[in-house]
């Protein structure tokens, strides 16, 4: 035992724990999932035969769509700018609202337990509603158009950014907070000098990320009447002008791609 060089022969080594029960549970769970998926397929009438049988319709659709009607481009410029404006405005407004909300919803920062719980509840409520829901809500409240889009996406942005930012604020180094408090700083000063310097780069990153989402989302939101290029898409779809539809999709795709690349590059430098 004490002559060192040879490894111990394992007399006292613990045995690996028996995993039999775990294995049964995971096998059962997998079987359950497969059954559930099969049921879901039957429920929505999924059929491979129908999919393959209609391939000719799909090719006809593609025939109608190509080549894209390039001359339609000048009429897309204004709606495209509108889409970008909606995204930008909503990102700014939503991110601004998210800052206080996320600070209240972070345990080490919140000034009192009831503030923390209220902010958490508000945040969860905002987040459970999808952006399309907000768009319909605001479209019926303030009328169809870009304003409804801005409102809907602002709420959506506030939900996303506050969720992410509150997690960052929960993970701050609380020792700095104690130092500022020991110097006689109040709540506002603690936030400004101990919390904000730690979360600011994260905030910038999340705001950019939500700009990415918003450019994509504001295109889609136009479909339900919230202005921008999506509204043109809806009109052309209903007129069966598929060569124009393809142009719109191409243009949106390019814009989203460019914004995402710029944003991703910037974010990599931030955090």
């Amino acid at each position, binding site marked *: 035992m004490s002559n060192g060089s040879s490894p111990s022969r394992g007399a006292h080594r613990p045995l690996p724990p028996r995993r039999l029960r775990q294995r049964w549970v995971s096998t059962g769970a997998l079987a359950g999932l497969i059954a559930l998926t099969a049921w879901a397929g039957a429920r929505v009438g999924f059929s491979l035969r129908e999919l393959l049988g209609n391939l000719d319709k799909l090719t006809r659709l593609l025939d109608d769509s190509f080549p894209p009607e390039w001359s339609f481009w000048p009429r897309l410029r204004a709606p495209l700018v509108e889409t970008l404006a909606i995204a930008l405005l909503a990102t700014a407004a939503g991110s601004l609202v998210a800052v206080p909300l996320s600070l209240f919803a972070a345990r080490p920062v919140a000034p009192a337990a009831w503030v923390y719980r209220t902010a958490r509840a508000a945040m969860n409520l905002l987040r459970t509603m999808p952006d399309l829901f907000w768009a319909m809500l605001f479209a019926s409240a303030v009328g169809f158009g870009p304003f409804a889009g801005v409102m809907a996406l602002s709420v959506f942005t506030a939900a996303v950014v506050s969720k992410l930012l509150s997690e960052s604020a929960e993970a701050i180094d609380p020792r700095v907070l104690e130092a*500022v408090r020991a110097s006689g700083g109040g709540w506002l000063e603690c936030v400004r000098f101990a919390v904000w310097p730690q979360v600011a780069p994260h905030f910038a990153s999340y705001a950019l990320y939500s700009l990415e989402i918003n450019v994509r989302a504001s295109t889609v939101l136009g479909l339900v009447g919230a202005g921008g290029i999506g509204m043109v898409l809806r009109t052309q779809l209903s007129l069966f002008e598929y060569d124009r539809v393809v142009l719109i999709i191409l243009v949106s795709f390019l814009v989203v791609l460019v914004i995402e690349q710029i944003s991703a590059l910037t974010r990599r430098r931030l955090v």
Partner: protein
Amino acid sequence: MIDFNGARVVYANGACALDGLDLEIAAGEMVVVVGLSGAGKSTLLRAVNGLVPLTSGDLRVAGRSVRQARGRALRLLRAEVGMIFQDFRLVRQLRVLDNVLVGRLARVAAWRSVIGAWPKHDVDLAFDALERVGLLARAYDRASQLSGGQQQRVGIARALAQQPSVILADEPVASLDPVTSKQVMDDLTRINRELGITTLVNLHDLDLATAYGERIVGLRAGKRVFDGPGAGVRAADFDRIYGRSAPSDDRQEARGER
């Protein structure tokens, strides 16, 4: 200046960190508090500026009761008491000058500090404090760019900028090498003598404590088990504070602990 009277602190988990402590510290004194980890040294310091509330008993700082201080009064009391930490606790993302200005927060209107419109008087005080610790040239560097010893001196400057009547130093040299440790302890001693600021220093290293403590207070399990001049610590006192005799390698061990 600081007057503990039957001070008890019991934490939520039931741990009793201060057990009916009586301790009087006169204005201008330099007191080194020694003891094992968990003996209540940190709690003693944090009671003075109200970061840890007393469970019972009384504690007066500069004639004011810490227990009764709330809100604005508590902030002003904390402004009177500068604090220095083992791990510096600077805002690493901010400039050195801004970190020192944090020491002025209790005296400056919130809207001014929040937007960075510091009154000239307070900026002057911050620069003075930086000059005193010899870091004037680094005022506009990010705090994270400084070495450990420099960061601790910024921590001292932050405390000085408060123009405090008391300085609390919680294991100020435990993260520093021996040479830097000596510099920081010398700084603290000089500040105590020149500015007459009452200074409380927690140290776990008894050698440093006897070298710098005009007065040493030994804590064990939240009780005062030694109180006397640094030069007069005997082996029997060491035994009482640390709960065992003091052969040289045991001393080493006590020093290595956090």
